[in-house]
């Protein structure tokens, strides 16, 4: 596993944490969109690639998640749809 200084942290929110079996995971930096999908289990990658899941990097929600460009120390959040009422 990568050490925090040279890695990117992936944070799984809501039901995605259950499916990932963890709330956070460290992966090697840098990490782009295909790297992110490659770091996830196939079913999870498919869900993250779908229109319902948003991606944030360093506290900003990406308008185009496929433009992800995470560097060492960055935190990526995978955000499933919020629950509503």
């Amino acid at each position: 596993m990568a050490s925090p200084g040279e890695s990117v942290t992936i944070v799984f929110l809501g039901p995605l944490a259950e499916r990932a079996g963890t709330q956070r995971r460290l992966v090697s930096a840098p990490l782009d969109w295909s790297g992110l999908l490659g770091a996830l289990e196939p079913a999870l990658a498919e869900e993250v690639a779908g229109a319902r899941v948003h991606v944030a990097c360093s506290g900003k929600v990406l308008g185009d998640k496929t433009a992800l460009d995470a560097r060492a120390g960055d935190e990526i959040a995978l955000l499933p749809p919020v629950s509503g009422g």
Partner: protein
Amino acid sequence: MRDIRLLQDPFVPGALVGPFTHANPGLGGVCTFVGEVRGDENVQALELTHYEPLTLPGMHDLADRAFDRFDLMGLLMVHRIGRMHPGEPIVCVSAAARHRRDAIDAVDFCMDHLKGAAWFWKREMRGGEWHWIEPREADYEDLARW
């Protein structure tokens, strides 16, 4: 007066709304909405997860938009996170304004956005098992009103 908070522990809405009202001298009206954990469908507990870097900043953005859109003197927006039980308050939004329509509409606006667009994920325990709550079509329709 602007007071935007996430709370980990149970709270008493009146204890917040009283001081908030007094902090806005000269107001013409205060409108308050309190949401509680519903006691239906054998719900034993509700748990709200949030994401620190986005959830509270998102509530501040929402407050900015409410101040831009309505003629407000003050806005209180408090949301629980963590585990709670039926009858416990989850959310309290209170708006103070010179005129009632701004206060009422600002609360309605904030509640629709907190429900449909704020970064919270909820799961409830029924029959001893956790179930994630999925978004409903009605939540998107509520948002589309604005």
